[in-house]
């Protein structure tokens, strides 16, 4: 599996993502600079966490307008897998590659903690190594992760099996509609999620629940 990590000026999980990818796939991902207008030929593009352009105005809004995102969008239309983590998820909603928006957390505070999630959907290249209903713990670290969409969109997401992760019942950290933590696009090749699987690929960091996502991707993409 060949992968690329997009680096925005204030990305700050680009290294975390690269380390996790290298650890699991054995090869270093290509780091792609935000001002570039082309993404190399890869199987997986990761949009990492961070603050892209300082996240002024709205998180991910300015990154959504960058050169590189036009290229990422094109690749995704050709079927390349795209994984947006945290800020990456925000960028994906801002470019409308995923529906809905991520608003300020309902309690208005930044939240960083180990977060229990439920795997809802395993029919995807991202979650095929998990079991439906499995409880996993990924850290969350965000100020704007409150997923909002209209009821029709939410029904559709649920009906089409595109809600992949939900916060464990009663443990919603940000007020997200229907406890949604991560969703797929219609073609199921783009996943956006607020929690950080790449920060739990090393037992020293509090768990390895994130590994299965990358292992599943390798299995599917070779």
């Amino acid at each position: 599996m060949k992968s690329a990590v997009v680096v925005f000026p204030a990305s700050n999980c680009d290294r975390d993502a690269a380390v996790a990818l290298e650890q699991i796939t054995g090869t270093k991902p290509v780091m792609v600079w935000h001002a570039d207008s082309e993404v190399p030929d890869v199987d997986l593009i990761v949009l990492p966490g961070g603050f892209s352009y300082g996240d002024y105005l709205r998180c991910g809004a300015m990154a959504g307008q960058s050169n590189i995102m036009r290229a990422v969008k094109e690749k995704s239309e050709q079927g390349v897998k795209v994984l947006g983590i945290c800020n990456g998820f925000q960028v994906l909603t801002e470019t409308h590659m995923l529906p809905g928006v991520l608003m300020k957390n309902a309690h208005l505070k930044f939240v960083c903690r180990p977060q229990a999630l439920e795997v809802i959907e395993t029919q995807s290249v991202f979650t095929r190594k998990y079991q439906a209903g499995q409880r996993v713990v990924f850290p969350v670290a965000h100020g704007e992760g409150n997923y909002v969409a209209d009821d029709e969109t939410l029904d559709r997401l649920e009906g089409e099996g595109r809600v992949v992760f939900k916060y464990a019942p009663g443990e919603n950290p940000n007020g997200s509609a229907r406890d949604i933590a991560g969703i797929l696009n219609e073609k199921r090749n783009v996943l956006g999620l607020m929690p950080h699987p790449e920060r739990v690929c090393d037992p020293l960091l509090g768990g390895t629940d994130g590994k299965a996502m990358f292992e599943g991707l390798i299995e599917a993409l070779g």
Partner: protein
Amino acid sequence: MKARVFVTLKNGVLDPQGKAIGHALGNLGFEGVGSVRQGKLIEIELSETDEAKAKAALKEMCEKLLANTVIEKYDIELKA
């Protein structure tokens, strides 16, 4: 030309920030405070002198960047 762009949440979209302010005002003893909503005010200086053209440009800025029209609406005010 100077423009003021107001970006606010659409009706029906929950506004926790506004709610928190309303709550805080209540705690401070202010009475008769009803709904409170918080939005953004963006002040932009433009070199464009034609009003219609400026408006059109501002509208495009709002659609492309300043507002997320999934949940937000915008209003444009021009001052010569």
